[in-house]
């Protein structure tokens, strides 16, 4: 296998004829007297998507995005500019703009390059080439035919296949150079069923850092279709959801979005540096029941939220956020770590070269406990069993978070009862986790569909958890 650095250099630097010496010079000019740190972030992304709707391949698109972001930091100040042409004049102009954050002064010396190796969590492959175009559209068509013949109540099927081949190169003023090639694929199916005029929808999908063969092996794409149909049919029979505080059992896997919202964002370094997170000042203190150990792990092979190096060139880590209920660590990027006198935890991420890095999650999940899922459900006299969710949101300052259940059931006397309509669940982060009273032995990660938004920047993430019992959350149904 060719060296990642060489492949990335050919993709990013060679087309514009950029040499090491030129880049050294740019960093040298950036490194003014008051500049604490500066870096260049080169990125190219080739992506495609194919869409099937009304049983025809309705469209496909191909996207190319290339550019370089230049950042210079002086104390708490950051100057940032970028260019969508990777050529010297554009790069020099961006560097000049970024540098204007600090006053002119004597230039500092820039360290000689040394390559910083990353993990090898996924292959540096181009997933767009892993199937022929004919095979891609054929997969969509076969899944459509397969699911439509399963149930006559299906009135609409929308399927998409998307892939991305991203190359990045980070060069820091400290001489660190890191590179990564990041494949990412995704398969989605949503469908609508109509029974006697009542329409309901179902959705499923998955993906990760591998190629399209993943969806064909084990018939995974067809399993997603079955799952979407199952959800839609469950919703056809759903009754009004209850309203008010109650015991809630959360299923394994994707419901881990609870942790992402209730805990994860509140432990990001930027909010804690500013002291405006509901978790600020709680390091070493109890913030969850002792059953809870929560990690943010960017080092899981092939996961959607994993990275060989983060967007500041730091290898990702398995960071323990909460251990047996005690808050252990915040997630850090270089900037916030420098200002707080600590080290980056490999959580510096950015949507693209046109955005500034900030502390972000990778794959966030709770480690398994002792209870079986059956024990947990049968322990509840009256409550809600929520197994699938849409999105969530958090106010990191007040700690209030929401997430919307898309598949949920009543629990009555320890038994799973009728399905209820989707409802928003609301809680207070630091409080909700102290009310986790049972943790299952069935840890699952999500199927690879998570997108996290923060300050207008989207990045792919993963979540997961075992089955959990939370003794009180407010369920936002319509039935009193």
């Amino acid at each position, binding site marked *: 296998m060719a060296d990642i650095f060489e492949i990335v250099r050919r993709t990013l630097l060679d087309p514009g004829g950029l040499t090491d010496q030129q880049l050294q010079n740019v960093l040298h000019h950036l490194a003014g007297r008051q500049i604490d740190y500066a870096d260049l972030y080169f990125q190219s992304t080739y992506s495609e998507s194919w869409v099937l709707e009304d049983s*025809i391949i309705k469209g496909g698109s191909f996207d190319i995005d290339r550019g370089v972001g230049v950042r210079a930091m002086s104390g708490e100040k950051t*100057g940032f500019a970028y260019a969508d042409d990777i050529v010297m004049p554009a790069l020099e102009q961006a560097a000049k703009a970024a540098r204007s954050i600090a006053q002119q002064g004597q230039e500092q010396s820039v360290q000689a390059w040394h390559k910083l190796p990353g993990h090898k969590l996924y292959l540096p492959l181009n997933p767009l080439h892993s199937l022929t175009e004919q095979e891609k559209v054929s997969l969509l068509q076969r899944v459509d035919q397969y699911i439509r013949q399963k149930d006559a109540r299906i009135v609409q099927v*929308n399927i998409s296949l998307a892939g991305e081949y991203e190359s990045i190169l980070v060069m820091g003023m400290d001489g660190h150079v890191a590179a990564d090639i990041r494949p990412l694929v995704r398969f989605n199916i949503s469908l609508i069923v109509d029974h006697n005029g009542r329409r309901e*929808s179902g959705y499923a999908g998955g993906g990760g850092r591998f190629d399209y063969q993943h969806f064909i092996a084990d018939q995974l794409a067809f399993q997603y279709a079955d799952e979407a149909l199952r959800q839609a049919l469950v919703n056809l029979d759903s009754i009004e959801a209850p309203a008010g505080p109650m015991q809630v059992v959360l299923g394994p896997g994707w419901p881990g979005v609870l942790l992402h919202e209730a805990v994860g964002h509140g432990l990001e370094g930027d909010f804690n540096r*500013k002291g405006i997170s509901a978790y600020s000042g709680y390091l070493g203190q109890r913030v969850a029941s002792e059953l809870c150990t929560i990690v943010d792990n960017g080092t899981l092979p092939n996961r959607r939220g994993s990275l060989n190096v983060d967007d500041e060139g730091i290898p990702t880590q398995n960071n323990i956020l909460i251990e047996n209920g005690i808050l252990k660590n915040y997630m850090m990027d270089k900037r916030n770590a420098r200002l707080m006198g600590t080290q980056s935890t490999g959580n510096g991420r950015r949507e693209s070269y046109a955005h500034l890095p900030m502390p972000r999650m990778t794959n966030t999940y709770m480690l398994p406990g002792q209870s079986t899922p059956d024990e947990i459900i049968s322990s509840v006299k009256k409550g809600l069993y929520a197994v699938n969710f849409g999105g969530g949101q958090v106010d990191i300052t*007040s700690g*209030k978070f929401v997430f919307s259940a898309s598949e949920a059931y009543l629990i009555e006397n320890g038994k799973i009862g009728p399905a209820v309509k989707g409802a928003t669940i609301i*809680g*207070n982060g630091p409080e909700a986790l102290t009310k986790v009273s049972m943790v299952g032995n069935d840890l699952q990660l999500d199927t690879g569909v998570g997108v996290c938004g923060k300050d207008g920047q989207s990045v792919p993430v993963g979540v997961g958890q075992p089955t959990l019992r939370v003794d009180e959350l407010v369920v*936002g149904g319509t039935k009193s």
Partner: protein
Amino acid sequence: MKVIDKISFDTNKLQQVAQDILNEAARLGANQAEVGIGTNKGFSVSVRGGSVETVEYHQDKAVEVTVFFGKRTGSASFSDLTPDAIRAAVEAACHIAKFTDEDPAAGLADQSELAFQYPQLDMLYPWRISVEDAIKLACQCEQEALAYDKRIMSAEDIRITTAEAFGLHANSLGFMGCFPYTRHEISCVLVAKERDEMQRDYSYTTACDPDMLESVSIIAKEAADKVVNRLGARRIPTMKTPVIYIAEEARGLLGHFAAAIQGGSLYRKASFLLDHLNKKIFPEFIFIQEFPHLPRALGSAPFDDDGVVTQANIFVEDGRLQNYSLGIYSARKLGMKTTGNAGGTHNLTIRPGDKDLKALMKKMDKGLLITEMMGQGANLVTGDYSRGVAGFWVEQGDIQYPVHEITVANKLQNMYQQILDVGNDVDTRGNIRTGSILLEEMMVAGE
């Protein structure tokens, strides 16, 4: 540092790029093609603790090309405008079209529907402010906000953004439309603390003309008022109660309506308003219209994403749904005509009533005033609606105390029928314009 003092895009050059793309598509055998180009240039500054925190210079361009081979479609998007990159992207789009199916609804608008004559909208007002002056202004905003109340512990983010943007749409039927505009914004996010409780809230002003921006003093005071008033928030009991959505959040109610009458939701049978044309979905007094050509309004657009002329469509009159919001593609799927709404509605407006917020609260007497929404929680297929909220408990028409960590739920169909009044306190900052809305009854989940 330099002031953005001239129009920073080159119309002729971008028109030439668009024409080159269309020519290349024709050369590769496409019988129709269209191009959209968007550019954006400007900067944003943020300050904290009396000095600058970030200065970001923005300079984006994005091109999207769609080619049609008969009824087969392919698209590509890119940002590199060199001839080689253009050729490669058009070729990629044409390559994709070899593998897509014949789609009877595909293709450009008819010649007669295109906006060959479109209005020149009055939306280009560059802000002649230097980065240094923007920083000073933001610092003034922070200083005034912090001085407002000792419980305000810090500013999370005070930001000033200015951008000049340019939209171009061209197609192989000879349409070439250009649309320059500016957009400026001042925002202020504050954190207040009292004992163990921290709350966060914000205020912002945005406009295409800097003279229409609110002053930083007003933004600072608004944000400070909002954040301090949230301190002491508690839950309320689970119950049915009338609610008022404050104008800013009432826009979301109208946003769900706009999404539900959009062609894409309808032909996919993914809307609770499917087959509701000419049906009464609101009370008699509700009138909803769009105003795509309002001068200096950020939602205005001279033509839609298909190059079709935009028009002042009436969507709801006497409470009845009069029109769907359609582009060429969804109109063909539904066997209807485009309404010039490819890409959505423009300055969608619900006719205001005569009461201000205070009078609306008097009318409600006792209930919940919603000032913030959390989460998604609206299912457009079924109309089921359940969202997290924060706000204030109102009795005898007066605010009693702040509330949070509660949800409100109902069905959108019922909520629209149960609108009792629309306030005259219209929020004009976005693409949806409404005053505060009083609703008869929602299920609140709390204690």
